[in-house]
């Protein structure tokens, strides 16, 4: 799979550039703004619905097994931090940012801007990939936090209106341990890191005008969402079994 080879190459070249501190801080900040701040609305609205959804589902499942809902909040919050928020924001990130990067770089590739850069001895990986890589990793974490907060908040509303769980009872960090926090944070960072590698690789492989860009963006969103889910599974299992 040519793409996988390219992804590994991009990874090693990026790490090399970062290691030698050949990084443009203002570009990283600009990319962070694009990826992290510009996505806040999308992530918040979607996580709001997911949060409400999550509480409904959990509550109706719990009703079959437990007599009352006092642990609903604690359970939802723990699950939110270790699983739901990271994977859902990861998916949303792969959707918004994954297609975005593939489209940007793909368009540049089919219009030969990448070749023009190479001719001027500007390294496309250093110029294009590294800032996005750093920005997206940071955005993965910050959006994960935003997503978790929004989801928990809307869940709290549903818990109260639908199941009469008081906010005090709901907002319980009883079940949350260090273990859960580290799991969630690792997931967010890992997903934020992986998505740009995959989608930039897809962008660099675009060829053939608008058709090529279309194909590259499609491939990017499919591959990066798959990577998000696989990373989620891997980290979840690893954390439970090993830690």
């Amino acid at each position, binding site marked *: 799979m040519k793409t996988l080879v390219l992804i590994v190459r991009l990874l090693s070249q990026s790490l090399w550039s970062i290691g030698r501190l050949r990084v443009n801080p203002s570009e990283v900040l600009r990319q962070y703004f694009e990826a992290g701040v510009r996505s806040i609305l999308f992530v918040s609205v979607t996580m709001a619905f997911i949060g409400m959804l999550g509480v409904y589902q959990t509550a109706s499942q719990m009703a079959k097994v437990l007599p009352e809902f006092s642990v609903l909040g604690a359970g939802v919050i723990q699950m939110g931090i270790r699983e739901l928020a990271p994977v859902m924001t990861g998916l949303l990130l792969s959707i918004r940012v994954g297609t975005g990067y593939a489209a940007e770089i793909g368009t*540049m590739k089919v219009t*030969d801007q990448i070749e023009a850069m190479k001719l001027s001895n*500007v390294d496309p990986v250093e110029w294009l990939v590294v800032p996005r890589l750093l920005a997206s990793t940071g955005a993965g974490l910050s959006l994960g936090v935003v997503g978790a907060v929004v989801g928990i908040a809307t869940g709290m509303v549903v818990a109260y209106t639908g199941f009469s769980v008081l906010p005090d009872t709901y907002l319980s960090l009883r079940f949350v341990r260090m273990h859960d926090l580290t799991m969630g944070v690792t997931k967010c960072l890992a997903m934020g890191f992986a998505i740009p590698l995959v989608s930039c690789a897809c962008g660099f492989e675009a060829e053939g005008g608008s058709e090529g860009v279309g194909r590259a963006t499609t491939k990017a969103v499919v591959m990066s969402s798959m990577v998000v889910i696989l990373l989620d599974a891997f980290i979840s299992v690893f954390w439970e079994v090993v830690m």
Partner: protein
Amino acid sequence: MSLPLVSLQNIAVRYRKKQVLRELSGDFYAGEVVGVIGRGGVGKTQLLRVLTTLLRPNTGTLVLMGKTVVWWQRRTLVEVRKSVGLQFQNFALFDFLDVHHNVTFPLEHQGILGAEEISSRAREALDRVGLASAATLFPGELSGGMRRRVAIARVMAARPPIAVFDDPVAGLDPINSAKIMRLLGDFAQEGKRVVFVATHDLERLFPVATRLLFLHNGAVDYDGPTSQRHLATSPRFLDFVEAATETAADFSSTV
């Protein structure tokens, strides 16, 4: 006899089971204006890409400015690319920079000249292609013809010893076509440089080009001085040059 600026030795390129360039060889010297001509799809753009180190040939050697290009060695490529300029067929202008900065881009990253000098060269180049007033516009706001002229200015500002122009006048109106071709001719005269021009506009090419390189099916069918083109032995070349339209070669070629 001075050393050639560009030397091709048995360059061959294969792409997806198709032999795009076959065993091409040639030496090109400073002061030459080489017209690269041929039917569509015959390998012109690929040849130009090999010349500018953007396309790695499957076999053969490329020597630029006396240095043999070692394709896997980044240092050589970086060194050699400083002497080469290419005006891309599809312009390859950076969408995120305005016209002025598009033109200064190669010089800025060469790291040799100071900002003042770079800026004045850019302004001069834009002026020569007639786009001095468009300096603050972005590529997205320009017409196709204007974008091509910016791409040309980008090469000129850098003043490379090896300058390559892929389709500099396609779709331009007759007046601008003539102006640009003359400009390329002047540009070649100005320094010790070799200029390659790929185009279909033979009428305007002939007064400017000193040498013609006619490609057919990936190989060189004619390589000689423009002034002696009528003495060529290849019938394909003669047809092409005389723009004969009634021969059987018209649509039945393998292109």
